[in-house]
């Protein structure tokens, strides 16, 4: 084990012991291979069961690609959620532009991928950065629950999601589910900030309201406000709670 990997593992064990346990003995499947690139840093190639090969990072210059992905982040946010870490090039590229206090929530679906990243990327500094949280293969609801418990509405309403698209291609169901949970928190919180009367629906989140809310979010222009929809949600809430 080289010194960089040693430090990565030490920091992980100290700060994220549960994740360390999760990845400590994970076998690297033969479908996962680190592949050298002309830029001098490796990329990660994964063979899918369908016979496709997906490069999680550029096979030419993974660092430059990471910088381009990070540059596409919106300017104003107070919480960054990264869906798909791979070898962390895009994550490390995004960090310098973030305010020091901005929390970062990292989600990786595959423990084997994290294991390989620990072996080739310097991650100790990232893990030690205040406000970093790491999830590996956790249930989407658990991630959403963490957001609810650790971040108030005013932070959630300003969260940004950095989606690593190749990772999403590799585990579409998992990242899709996490994305929906996360983005719902943001949009609920956003609406709550703009429309305090919605608090009872959003906080209670009775299942029917959540379904309706998702439908509305897909239909209403962003920033349009809920208007009449808020009134109909009030009616739904009253009908739900009334006796017969």
């Amino acid at each position: 084990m080289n010194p960089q990997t040693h430090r990565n593992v030490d920091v992980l064990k100290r700060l994220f012991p549960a994740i360390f346990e999760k990845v400590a003995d994970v076998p690297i499947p033969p479908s996962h291979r680190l592949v050298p690139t002309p830029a001098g840093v490796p990329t990660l190639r994964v063979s899918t069961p369908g016979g496709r090969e997906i490069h999680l990072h550029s096979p030419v210059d993974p660092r430059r690609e990471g910088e381009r992905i990070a540059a596409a982040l919106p300017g104003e946010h107070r919480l960054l959620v990264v869906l798909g870490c791979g070898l962390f090039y895009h994550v490390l590229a995004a960090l310098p532009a973030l305010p020091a206090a901005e929390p970062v929530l990292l989600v990786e679906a595959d423990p084997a991928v994290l294991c390989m990243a620990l072996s080739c990327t310097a991650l100790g500094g990232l893990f030690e950065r205040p406000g970093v949280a790491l999830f590996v293969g956790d249930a989407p609801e658990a991630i959403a629950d963490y957001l609810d418990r650790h971040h108030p509405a005013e932070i959630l309403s300003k969260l940004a999601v950095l989606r690593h698209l190749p990772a999403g291609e590799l585990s579409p169901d998992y990242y899709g589910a996490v994305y929906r949970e996360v983005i719902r928190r943001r949009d609920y919180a956003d609406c709550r900030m703009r429309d305090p009367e919605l608090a009872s629906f959003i906080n209670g989140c009775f299942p029917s309201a959540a379904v309706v809310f998702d439908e509305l979010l897909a239909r209403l222009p962003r920033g349009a406000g809920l208007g009449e929809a808020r009134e109909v949600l009030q009616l739904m809430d009253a009908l739900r709670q009334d006796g017969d």
Partner: protein
Amino acid sequence: MTHGKPKRILVIRTHRMGDILQVTPMIRGLREKYPNSHLALLVEEAFAEVLQRNPDLDEVIAFPRVRLAGVIRSDARLSWAAYRELRDLLHRLRTPRFDLIINRQFTDFEAVLTSLAGAAAVRGKTVGADGRFRYADPVTARVVEQTRQFGRNPALKNLVDLSMEVAGVSPSVRRLVFPVRPAVAAACEKRLRDHEFVQSGPFYGIQPGASRGFKKLGSGALAALVDHLAGKRGGRVLFFGTRSERPLGEEITGRLRVGRGAILNLMGETNLEELGGFLALCDLLITGDTGTVHVAAAVGTRTLCASYGMTYPYETAPYGPGHVVLYGDLPCAPCDDPDRCASDMACRRVLAPETLTAGVDLQAALAAGDARAAARLREAAPLRGVGLLHTGESEITGDLRLFDLRREIPPLNPGPSARTAHIPPIEPGSQDALSRLRELLGEIGRHVETSLAGFAAGEKETGFGEIVPIFDLWSQVMGELGSFGEEEMDLPPGVPERMSVFRTDLLRLLQGMEQAVTRMDLAALQDILSVEMGPLLADLEEGLEWVSF
């Protein structure tokens, strides 16, 4: 407060058939008061068809309340469809908007809907600008406040009359409206003939079930009752109810000793209109406090209504003269929660077979105008300890009045009554309110004098007989006093506050009167009438002198 005549009026009373029927006299009054206005009713869709035939309505807005509530509570997958249905309902209530909404439902959903519909004037429960529920008219606000303080409305006013007071109407005919088409009535008659039910004796209807468990009649009691009706009284018996209740009817039939040819089980075989058609052919309906009892009252059939548990006959007794209510008259009645009753619902003794059969005999005596037989029956063992009420009408207000048969046998088979001289309701806060108050106070004074004179002469029936009208009149006084607090009125400083103090004193006094009547505490009642009520009347009359319009 409504200024000018409303062109579009919406009445909201969405669920329970009996409750919906109880607003039909108010709707009749609205039709007479505003003959050219568009009059609509919002109801649960299951009841819409029968309301479509109400001649006083221009529009019936059917709304699947039960289904949507179920979806929202338990089936999130369909909630987007439910959302769209609610949105469409809201659009319908807003385009074009109603000028006046009278919400006679006390549930939250209808209050939110009333608020969102955006009518120029609202009566009943709605949502205020502060987001809290409120009662938008002084009558409803007063009743809710009194109910909160006393547990029940101490004015002893039937919900039908309260609705009319809320709307400020007094129809020329005070009767529930439930039209049955001639063809349907004829089909019901044919069904009875086909079953060889010929009118050689009385036809009795029985509704054994009820939508709420505590209102149901027991099969054992009913089997004994049916034996009595078909045997001793030589009648035929029709069972009414839903398809799911049919086994109850079959269980009763299985316990009978009389021939089953005397029974026709119609449970689950009638729609609402046919139910009305069959009830109209009955001489008497025996039931608990169910929607069917109100349908019977609407089609002019007398009823024997067993009232117990949470049911409060002074509010929900069948509307119209000639009905008998057996009341589980205990200190705890009406109870808050029959499921937690520590006394195993002792009030249910009104359901004992011998009580019901004696009740039928009492009803028959009253219907035949036989006051002597009625007086004898009320003292008979099966009816001892049971509250006995007989519906009639108040000679003063025309409202439904419940005569306590323990204290008085009411005028039987009354001829044209003094109701032609109804005191019409006055718009709250109107120019006539002051003179109306003086009239009411004068009336109360006369009743107090008569009552005290009766007690002094040892005529307890006379003394107690004056109490109900006094409650009626005080109830109206409370409403008029409430109108003095309304913002639209130009009152001298301090008057609304003074009126508020009067209302508080009145509430306390009424509470004392009710307790004294309940305990039959003659001394306490006389004390209140002679010592407390006199000064309060004088004080109030003096206070009115300050008011100038």
